[in-house]
């Protein structure tokens, strides 16, 4: 019987937002790799992802996992034109910070800091939250992401004017919209199906 919920009473949990590498443990049982059929392998897209409890859990619905993964990859990795990768990762980090996903924020804070070579600014966003003082271009991207994360959505023409004034082309603004919107999807899966843990020491 796989319909059981796993809890972790003694888990070593992170205490705040962090750019450090942390783990994630599932509350539901991932699909065991020996039960994967061709349909499930197609769902995880990259075979190595079957080793991740998150993707192996999502593999229980392979069609939506595959479509989600390919959407994710294009929004973040396709840098043919449009917004630099660093700023797509900034939108992902700001959205995760606003929604409260410590795990998602950790992954994308590392990417944003790495690609922008601005780890101090990213750390400020993690520590102080979405009102942290950043330069105008980054503040405009963070504010747009936060407005998109609100329910009901608060994103307005003012956010677009601010992004344009900060130097973004309309094609780049679409990347902000897609990147932030996508993390509303990712945050909700990560937050509701499991929780972050600190890696084992040593």
């Amino acid at each position, binding site marked *: 019987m796989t319909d059981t919920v796993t809890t972790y009473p003694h888990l070593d949990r992170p205490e705040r*937002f962090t750019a450090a590498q942390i783990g994630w443990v599932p509350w539901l049982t991932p699909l065991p790799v020996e039960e994967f059929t061709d349909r499930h392998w197609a769902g995880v897209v990259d075979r190595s992802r079957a080793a991740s409890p998150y993707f192996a859990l999502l593999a229980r619905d392979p069609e939506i996992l595959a479509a989600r993964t390919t959407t994710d990859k294009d929004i973040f990795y396709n840098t043919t034109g449009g917004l630099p990768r660093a700023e797509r990762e900034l939108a992902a980090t700001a959205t995760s910070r606003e929604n409260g996903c410590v795990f998602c924020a950790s992954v994308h804070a590392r990417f944003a800091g790495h690609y922008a070579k601005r780890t101090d600014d990213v750390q400020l966003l993690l520590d102080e*939250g979405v009102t942290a003082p950043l330069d105008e271009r980054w503040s405009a991207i963070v504010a747009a992401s936060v407005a*998109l994360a609100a*329910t*009901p959505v608060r994103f307005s023409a003012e956010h*677009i004017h601010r992004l344009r004034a900060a130097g973004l082309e309309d094609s780049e603004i679409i990347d902000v919209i897609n990147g932030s919107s996508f993390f509303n999807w990712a945050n909700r*899966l990560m937050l*509701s199906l499991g*929780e972050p843990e600190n890696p084992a020491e040593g």
Partner: protein
Amino acid sequence: MTIRIPPDVIDVLLGTRPDDTLDTLRSLRPATREHTQRSFEALFQPVDESHIGLAERYAIAVFVAALHKDVRLTEFYAAGLGDHPALLSAVRSAADAGQAEGPYGSYREAGLQAENQEGLTFQVGTAGRDALGTRLAAALDHAHRLVFHPRDSRPEALEALIAAGWDTDGIVTLSQLIAFLTFQIRVVSGLLTLAETLPLTHPTEASS
């Protein structure tokens, strides 16, 4: 021009016309456009309906869109419940009772306790529960948390779904469904907002 079959749902919702400004901008990211559509199809034209039926999916979608006060998406999904007027009515009533502003919620992380924000913890009422059934009512309770206060998620929420008749595969699809909708609603909202700031540049049409 390219005719997409089935039509791209976001283009339908946006009222995009071939070669207008939004079409041109969306066409810069053809893979995003294609796979966003595939995501919709995976959820609403599913290969496997055994863990969560189509009417349940549309009912949850109406609820999620209505919590966002997004009339366009609410009515789009409501059309999928044309054969279930009583169900649609019960979902609309539940959404009216569940209005809130998110994101809020409490952190488990010790260092983030100062950021906790109170807000509505929603449960479908007794009358709604009778109309929706235990299983769908539990799904709406869960959807409300995921939409407005996902950081309040705890394992107990999944226990409640299992107690209401959901299995593990069904909870995975349910979670993807709710989370996808929060993405789709924002993409449509964001692109419509962008379109409002653009000059109208529909292509000149021959004579129609």
